[in-house]
């Protein structure tokens, strides 16, 4: 690791850089005169007898070369380039990034900020805010929740009224800001194979799905003792824990006996990442309003009228 810690390599790089630049100047000086009496061609010959005359170039051309040498020396004084020397301007990549971010925030910040003080319910009905929210949604959310917010298997649908963690503006904002971690423990070992199946059939019965009534009857007490702590005695879920409502026809991880059985037996860890580190509060506010509007049935940014109207 000495090459990363020793000062020697800094000097080595700096020295080679400077020597090369100066050598360019010396080389240029040497090459700008030639002995008289030689043939006035470059010495290159093509197609047997085509040769190129070595006529003088304009003098300003040589000055341009010297100018590049002067430029590179000035550059190396002002900017980092010689080993660990930092340059007199104190320029850094990180500094430039921060500066540009600052400039961008100063320019675009007010666009987001003007909605920050308005309540979500109001922002959700604003067409301009909705257009911005849609763009944010497409950039940050659509990969999992789909471009229309309709979700997919494992990724909740945001356009219905069914919420794992609550659909109030505050709850949505908390989900986006801090993320969510939905955990269901694997219960296969505790319930046993038959017990798991019985519970699955009881769960099926909660939403009125087809089920085996004997298994359902056997599963009910198991459900009450094992599952009700999170999903509630009536299976209607608990948004404080992110426990889904089992009594509706919405199945995040698939419907039917097999899917439920697997869920019961193996459990689930489902994560929504936190966005507070890379989205400003004002952007999260707009995003919250957009997501809220999806479930409220406004279609502002879609700009689309219902068919036939």
């Amino acid at each position: 690791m000495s090459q990363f810690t020793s000062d020697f390599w800094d000097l080595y790089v700096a020295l080679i850089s400077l020597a090369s630049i100066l050598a360019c100047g010396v080389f240029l000086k040497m090459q700008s005169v030639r002995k008289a009496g030689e043939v006035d061609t470059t010495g290159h010959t093509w197609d047997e007898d085509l040769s190129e005359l070595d006529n003088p170039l304009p003098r300003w051309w040589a000055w341009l070369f010297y100018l590049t040498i002067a430029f590179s020396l000035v550059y190396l004084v002002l900017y980092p380039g010689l080993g660990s020397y930092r340059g007199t301007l104190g320029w850094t990549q990180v500094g430039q990034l921060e500066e540009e971010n600052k400039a961008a925030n100063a320019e675009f910040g007010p666009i987001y900020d003007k909605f920050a003080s308005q309540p979500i319910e109001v922002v959700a009905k604003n067409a301009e805010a909705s257009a911005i929210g849609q763009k944010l949604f497409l950039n940050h959310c659509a990969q999992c929740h789909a471009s229309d917010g309709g979700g997919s298997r494992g990724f909740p649908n945001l356009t219905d009224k069914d919420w794992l963690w609550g659909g109030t503006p505050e709850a949505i904002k908390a989900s986006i800001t801090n993320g969510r971690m939905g955990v269901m423990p694997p219960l296969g070992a505790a319930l046993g194979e038959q017990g798991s199946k019985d519970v699955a059939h009881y769960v099926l019965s909660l939403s009125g799905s087809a089920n085996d009534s004997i298994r359902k009857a056997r599963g009910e007490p198991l459900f009450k003792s094992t599952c009700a702590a999170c999903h509630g005695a009536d299976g209607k879920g608990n948004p404080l824990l992110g426990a889904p409502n089992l009594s509706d026809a919405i199945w995040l991880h698939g419907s039917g006996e097999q899917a439920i059985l697997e869920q019961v037996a193996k459990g689930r860890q489902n994560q929504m990442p936190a966005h507070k580190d890379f989205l400003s509060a004002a952007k999260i506010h707009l995003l919250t309003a957009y997501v809220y509007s999806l479930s409220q049935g406004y279609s502002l940014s879609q700009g689309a009228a219902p068919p036939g109207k």
Partner: protein
Amino acid sequence: MKVAVPAEIRLYAADKKIYPRAVHGWFAAWRWLLVWGTQLVFYGGAWLTWNDRQAILFDIAHRKFYILGLVFWPQDVIYLAVLLIICALSLFLFTAVAGRLWCGYACPQTVYTEIFLWVERMIEGERNKRIRLDRDPLHVRKAALKTAKHAAWIAIALWTGFTFVGYFTPIRELGSEMLALAAGPWETFWILFYGFATYGNAGWMREQVCTYMCPYARFQSAMFDKDTLVITYDAKRGEPRGARSRSADDRHLGDCVNCGICVQVCPTGIDIRNGLQYQCIGCTACIDGCNDVMDRVGAPRGLIRYSTQNALERHLTPAQTLARALRPRVLVYASILAAIVIGAAIGLYARVPLKVDVIRDRAAIAREVEGGRIENVYRLQIMNTAEAKRTFEISAAGLPTLEIAGASRVELEGTASRMVPVRLRVQPGAAAAGTHRIEFAVSAIGAEGVEVREKSVFIIR
């Protein structure tokens, strides 16, 4: 006695300033006509309006390029490619027929040099006066003349820079911003940059741009052949050259009176009598100059003229020379050029002012919704490239029971684009699991023929 030879030769030499003498004549008139033509278009074009907007505006910030009634988007870059191909082929064609026509008549370097030389001549006087003025030590009159010249040059250069920037930012707004000294930093930079380039290139660099900097000047000699019209000194007729005297017997002399006018008028400082040289930009000043002299000495015109290598070697008549212009090479260039121009014109005429990109959601492949129906989600980027507000109807076909869930109409302002999420649904069992080809159609309501079809896929799992 030995001649003292310098021991070494400098490979970077100071320039010798060229003082081209003014010429008048048939070709000079043509050149001025083209100066007026090109500059009227350039300086005037920016001020034209069309439908309450600037007629020619390249709005880089909004990625919209307005040319008269057309609005180009970055997606139309193919038309730029076609334009460049047309330019290149025209260059091939013109160069094959008559050499460096572009350099001599239409190149901005030639045109602005011509304008700047005219200013110089108006202020400092003809060639002799300019040479004398430059030799003189500085005196009040010289300082005044030079100041006036540079002031005039700078004024023209700044106006040129302003006009140039006026094609990228609305010129009327730019004008009022300039008057209020409130032009943006980039606009100011580009006005000054382009102004400086004009001033430097047309005032100071002049022929050096052509001889040292321009790549086209060098590679066009590859497009010459023995039937290409180039500016030629007829050595058979002219040599041996020499000045006339009334008493002496001049019969052994050729028509060239060795007056040196052809060298004095040359903007690149060459002697055309040495044959075709790479510095020759084909400006024809030497033809006009020589014809004038021939008229005065009573010899026929055309000692220096447009001619070809074959014409000189085989003593072809002008008619025969021109007939050779229609050789296969020229005909091939011309027909390819004509085909591309016609194709581009048809393409522009038939252009549909609507663009649609379909992007299928990648992560969420297919989802099951109420009733076991399968749903796929797409983003449709709809771009209304017309300048009028329009409503578009979206439809999709390719699978039984395929339908759009939700709204299928979208309204767009003129030259606006919008991303619309579209959900497509099929009934359970409508098709086998797998990938199915489908097609979106987006059509403008109330505008016949404004329709775009885009292919995509629907996935069932």
